[in-house]
């Protein structure tokens, strides 16, 4: 049985800065990394592999250089890596992205039964959290988002029980497999690759599938298959640090002032 892990290569956005003069994104020298949530998804897959002996396939849709990210997945123990790369996949929104990913997963399913698909909760660039549900819906899998604990996997009964982390509450949910899970950081602590595995992964194959392999309608993928488009990008108003009031001499007034400020931005959970 296969576990498919979807990994997106993203720019390390914590290193992104806004040029104060031109007010544009400074991307110079910013490395690409695996989306951090996806490394937790991969880790969970590897743990299930250790426990049940399933095979782990890492899949990514992206430009040719996303191969580097998949190679890292091989270095921590993924059995196979597939890069979905084609000009016609480019410029995709989440609808088009999930189309390509779900097609690739279906294709994998033809070779070996897919039991689980693991995604990150969201990416740190697009930030939408929509691709996972897109895959689950297209492939008719159970959809379990925001998983922070996997309680039980019943391979024979094809059932999985997880805990989901929601606002102010947790839910224990049981669902039939195949299932698509999106995972949060609290789920686990990703392992660190050993050097022998790293060295070995250097010449393992990362398969590349283009649209000839997936045979998708070009109007349903990439830019053409994307109902949303980004019309404009601008820099947010930077909130510079601000010293509120005079806390030394007027603690009461200052506290009220702070509460007002938080309220005006609707930041207080009351």
């Amino acid at each position, binding site marked *: 049985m296969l576990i498919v892990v979807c990994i997106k290569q993203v720019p390390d956005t914590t290193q992104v800065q806004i040029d104060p003069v031109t007010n544009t994104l400074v*991307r110079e020298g910013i490395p690409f990394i695996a989306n951090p949530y996806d490394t937790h998804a991969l880790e969970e897959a590897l743990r299930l592999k250790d426990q049940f002996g399933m095979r782990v396939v890492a899949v990514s849709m992206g430009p040719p*250089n996303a191969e580097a990210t998949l190679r890292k997945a091989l270095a921590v123990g993924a059995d196979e890596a597939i890069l979905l790369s084609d000009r016609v996949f480019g410029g995709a929104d989440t609808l088009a992205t999930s189309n390509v990913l779900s097609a690739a997963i279906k294709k994998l399913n033809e070779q070996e039964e897919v039991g689980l698909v693991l995604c990150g909760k969201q990416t740190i660039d697009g*930030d939408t959290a*929509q691709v996972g549900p897109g895959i689950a819906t297209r492939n008719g899998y159970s959809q379990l988002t925001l998983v922070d604990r996997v309680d039980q996997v019943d391979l024979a009964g094809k059932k999985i029980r997880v805990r989901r982390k929601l606002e102010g509450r947790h839910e224990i949910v049981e669902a039939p497999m195949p299932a698509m899970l999106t995972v949060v950081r609290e789920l686990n602590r990703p392992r660190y690759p050993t050097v022998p595995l790293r060295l070995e992964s250097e010449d393992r194959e990362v398969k590349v599938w283009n649209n000839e392999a997936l045979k998708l309608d070009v109007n349903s993928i990439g830019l053409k298959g994307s*109902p949303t488009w980004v019309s404009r990008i601008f820099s947010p108003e930077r909130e510079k640090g*601000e010293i509120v009031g005079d806390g030394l001499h007027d603690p009461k007034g200052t506290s009220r002032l702070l509460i007002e400020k938080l309220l005006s931005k609707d930041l207080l959970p009351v």
Partner: protein
Amino acid sequence: MTVEKKPVKKPRGKARLIEGRCIACGARCESSCPVNIISMNDAGEPVINAEKCIGCVKCVKVCPAQAIDMFFTPEEQQLLDELMKTADAALEEDDPEAAALASKLAQYRNVWVFIEQTEGEPARVSWELLGKGRELADALGVELIAVVFGEKVENLCHESFAYGADKAYLVDAPVFRFYRTEVYLKALCQLIETHKPEIILMGATGLGRDLAGAVATVVGTGLTADCTGLGIDDKRNLMQTRPAFGGNIMATIMCDKFRPQMATVRPHVMTLPERREGASGEIVPISCPIDEKDILTKVLEVINDKKGKDHVDVAGAEFIVSGGRGMMGPANFALLKELADELGGVVGASRSAVDAGWMPHDRQVGQTGKTVRPKIYIACGISGAIQHLVGMQDSDLIIAINRDKEAPIFEVAHYGIVGDLFQVVPELVLGIRELKQQ
């Protein structure tokens, strides 16, 4: 006035990348180019083979970052300027395709807001959305409709009217008691198919994002995530503004060729509308033939985080009030606990406070403790050593209370109060309590 008859060919120019603007959006330009002359480099930026450019401007239009413009040689530029002077304003061509699209889109009307509830308890964001939805509906001249799913939740329809809805679609059945993607998905898709809304808004909550992503996929329309701003443009299209790249940029997203236009909206961003007691509207009960037997997904247990408080998980908390050496002693942490309780959060600590034995190690935030990313982090009596900062600087909002105005914590704080925490914190608690009583 004599117009020269010579047929001057309007120079089309060549596409060119403007240095430093590209955000590596994922090769939109490359895929838009009809003659395949754009390739992407390792940094994810386009390399345009300008010689072969046919000047179709597709890449320019598609680039979200306005990173590509058309370049003209000085001669061409001169020609253009002349043409500009002479040419009449170009007439909008009648595009048959556009007309067909317009009539298709016209079938969709009204603004819907999905009312989220857990065990009958509504999510506040739903009311915020009714406020925004009202604005949008008024701008479009359509109805604002609340969509209520659940078991025994008719009261939420009335509540929706109080917050501005004209009408409510009510799906009320035991199978809807707990949110399960499959069930809600089927019902909402059925509703969309029959009633064709032009806009659907949901809270960008765990539930909202789970459902919206599935619905948009089945309906085959665009979905914009986690919006912080919504507006209507001059063509009845929804302009959806949202942060991306970890909040480093804002993007305005359009979905102008598809309906419904779906968006999830970040909680606490839209203002809560005033509640109009006794406002009424039409409740449209909808029945969805879903049999519990067919639904294999079961919610076995819902754990309220506020109740099961024996295990405090600082790493996953949404509100954290942390204390440092400035707390002076273990007993004073009760003060922070009060504030944390008001916010529904937990108490964290700096290593100094942990070393002093005032707090257990599992509450330590920082380099050798937990890394936290709460919505609000309040640092009380913490100086802000780098070992502490690395554990909390990704918090959405940082508030620092410290009596030393030079303390490095103020460098990362969004709001700082220079003062004695023993005076400020109790005032904050009082202030929030008063607010709650209002």
